């Protein structure tokens, strides 16, 4: 009902405002004989903006305050003893009153004060709603009249509407910044709490990761050295890159330089399917298929490869990021001016010589940018490593052995059974922050490289 009225209100104002704007501007154009600066529809939209913004502001404010006001109102009708006591009982009786007021009814005896309160609330809600609607209507009407008065043939309604559109677009792109702020803020306080338990130096330079389960309760216990996790992350990322770069790059080269357009149009989306597969599926694939395969392969050639190891996780992660590298590189390689390619072919170079010596070097900065994006993606990947790397946060250099990464430790520490108020789980936030900074540095680097690359052609 209320939503219906409000929707009707909004639609009515929208229609009236728009109509006013467009017809008035048209009429003015007719009488004054001057050409309108903006088309009537812009005048209409401008007025609609002036009308709807105050309207929505009032309604929005009410939506935020509504329940708080009603609850406060109910407490006036409740016995003082109950209000003074507060807590559960109060909340429960407020809920009962609200249930009565909405006509939903409650189970059991209805007390007198509850009944009166409910009736009062019913009346109050109606009045409050009417007041809000009246206020919204008045403001909207004021906005409408103000905007209407401004209409002249010269009035730049289009510029105003476009200004509003631009503002909206800007607001959208600021979401990314807000998200970043949000992330930093939500990580920082908790990370600081962690550092009140553990010396940052021990964290950043420690070589042992063993956030032991403290049997004695909160606090203390364990070592929180970042280095093994960092190394694990780097190791897996390197393996992933070693898997993905040759395959991805060669695929990109093939698709952009050798393949017929038809082949390309089929193969490219097929490879891109790899990017859309949920990481958990990769995790499984690693755990039940790739890992055992690598282990038995290792047996066959006499190398001890563990089923879950840096190698397993790295290879599967590499498969996942192949399309990142192949698709991006494909685009970048195709951006290399054909003049460059023709120059080399014209000198008598073979296709592969041209690719290796001219095209790839020319596209290199862009490819590096693509790889860096893939790297950050690999660094941030969790699920594959959780399932495939074997969770062994020990500083080891053999890729056939299990390892662990920062992201895995974040998940483990955050979702395990350890004390959430203790360093065992707070460390996750410090790890998150570290990772954030790590990828930030990578991305600034990527941006720098991409910038330089762009300058090269023009």
């Amino acid at each position: 009902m209320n939503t219906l009225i409000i929707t009707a209100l909004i639609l009515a104002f929208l229609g009236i405002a728009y109509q006013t704007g467009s017809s008035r501007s048209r009429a003015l154009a007719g009488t004054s004989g001057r050409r309108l600066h903006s088309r009537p529809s812009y005048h209409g939209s401008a007025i609609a903006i002036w009308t709807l913004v105050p309207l929505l502001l009032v309604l929005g404010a009410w939506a935020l305050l509504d329940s708080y006001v009603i609850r406060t109102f109910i407490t006036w009708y409740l016995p003082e003893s109950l209000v003074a006591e507060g807590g559960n009982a109060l909340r429960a009786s407020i809920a009962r009153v609200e249930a009565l007021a909405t006509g939903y009814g409650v189970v059991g005896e209805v007390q007198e004060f509850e009944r009166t309160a409910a009736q009062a609330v019913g009346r109050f809600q109606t009045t409050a709603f009417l007041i809000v609607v009246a206020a919204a209507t008045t403001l909207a009407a004021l906005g409408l009249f103000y905007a209407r008065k401004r209409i002249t043939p010269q009035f730049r309604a289009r510029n105003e509407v476009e200004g509003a559109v631009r503002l909206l677009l800007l607001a959208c792109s600021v979401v990314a910044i807000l998200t970043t702020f949000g992330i930093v803020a939500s990580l920082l306080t908790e990370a600081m709490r962690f550092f009140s338990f553990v010396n940052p130096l021990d964290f950043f330079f420690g070589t042992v990761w063993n956030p032991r389960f403290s049997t004695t309760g909160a606090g203390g216990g364990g070592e929180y050295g970042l280095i093994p996790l960092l190394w694990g992350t780097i190791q897996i990322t390197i393996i992933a890159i070693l898997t993905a770069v040759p395959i991805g790059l060669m695929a990109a080269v093939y698709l952009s330089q050798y393949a017929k357009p038809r082949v390309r149009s089929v193969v490219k989306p097929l490879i891109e399917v790899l990017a859309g597969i949920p990481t958990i599926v990769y995790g499984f694939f690693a755990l039940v298929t790739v890992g055992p395969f690598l282990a038995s392969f290792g047996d066959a050639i006499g190398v001890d490869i563990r089923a879950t190891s840096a190698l397993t996780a790295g290879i599967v992660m590499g498969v996942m990021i192949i399309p990142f590298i192949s698709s991006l590189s494909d685009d970048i390689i195709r951006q290399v001016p054909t003049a460059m390619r023709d120059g080399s072919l014209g000198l008598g170079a073979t296709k592969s010589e041209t690719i290796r010596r001219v095209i790839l070097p020319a596209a290199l900065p862009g490819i590096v940018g693509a790889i860096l994006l893939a790297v950050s993606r690999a660094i941030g990947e969790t699920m594959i490593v959780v399932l495939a790397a074997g969770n062994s946060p020990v500083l080891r250099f053999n890729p056939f052995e299990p390892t662990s990464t920062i992201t895995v430790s974040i998940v483990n520490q955050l979702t395990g059974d350890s004390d959430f108020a203790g360093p065992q789980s707070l460390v996750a936030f410090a790890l998150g922050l570290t990772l954030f900074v790590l990828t930030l540095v990578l991305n600034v680097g990527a941006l720098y490289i991409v910038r330089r690359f762009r300058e090269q052609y023009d």
Partner: protein
Amino acid sequence: MANLDSTTTASAGTAVTAEERRQRVKKSLGARHRKERLFHGLGITAVVLALGFVGILFYDVLQRGLPAFQQAQVTVDVYFDPEIIELGERPVQAAGQSPADYRAALNAWLRDAALANWNLVLETSIRNIVPEFQGSAREIAAIIDSSQRFVIRDAFTNDPSLLGQTREFALLASANADNWLKGTIDRSLPDARQQLSADARALADDLLERGEIRFAFASHLFTNVDSRSAPASAGLAGAFMGSLYMMLIVIVLAVPIGVASAVYLEEFAPKNRLTDVIEITINNLAAVPSIVFGLLGAAVFINYFRLPLSAPLVGGLVLTLMTLPTIIIATRSSLRAVPPSLRQAALGLGASRTQMVFHHVLPITYPGILTAAIIGVAQALGETAPLLLIGMNAFVANIPSSPMDQASALPVQIYLWQGNENRNFFEARTSAAIIVLLGLMLSLNAIAIFLRSRLEKRK
């Protein structure tokens, strides 16, 4: 000029004569062409490898998951024995009765119905089929999925007139019986290592032989919600709907916001520090591990904005933030591909920048934007980690009817099932869930490709 000429000819001549040069070029050719073929071969290998991974992945998942789409079902004539089901009339709402009071009365009746011995109803019905079976009630219960008693109960509460009647039901066999009959568990193992007792196994075999147990398409996989107590009846409906809601939210929020930011950055933003910061921020967000978005979601949407726990709404919002960078980056690159001549044509005619963007640039970028949206939504659809922190990695036994209801999601369901101890049974189910997820993803892609070709044709 002549001077320069003679010296240069001489210097060129010192190294090689034309003929000699030609010979040298000829000599190097063999090796160069071999390298060329090798390089070409490497390219093909790379493509084949990449496609091979796609193929293996699909083969692997299909091969594991397909059996789960078949399930053993027992056809039973159930007699609603009034002796066992001792229940009064189903209450009706009296005039003037408050809705709350009516609900209380109805609930009391339903609770009584719940407490009736439905297992016994089932047991007698089974014994009617195999009168010679001498085993205990336990054995019979062991081969019927424990949720099935609710199936007949619900049939009864919906239609109390069934009392004293007989009706045929196709009941799900239990997970263990299904394993046994399908042979996913080694039939030669000794009793101690079997999940079913010898009697129960014999009963299952007997029923199969009589044709009372048949393998049927496991449609409940799509209509039921998850279940812990009755594994065989566990389905994906709840998770599927949860994922669907989140997808809708991502489409409704992330796509417009992402496209709007991309448009702003590419078409309007002055090149200044702020734009640089936004650009780096966006690229960086693309790399932030997804679980961090979960932390953010918990802090912002749940603790600050007080949105409900486990709700697809919150999940959708978190995934929106997570996929925004992907959509922005992809959209920007397709905006960049719009030829400048088109922009100039519009501006030259006196279109404003906004008009240029909305009338000319965006319409021809639709296919690219569509691709961007698909990539983003696909990423959101497959994400698990951030849902962990906003209560969505939960066991939810309801199909959500709105984005504010508690729900699970497909990848979460996969995660929960893969950890289920009834491994023989859930191994296939997990893969089946993956197949459903991949199916959703591929149909999304197919729709995109279809739309894209339509849009491109329209041009």
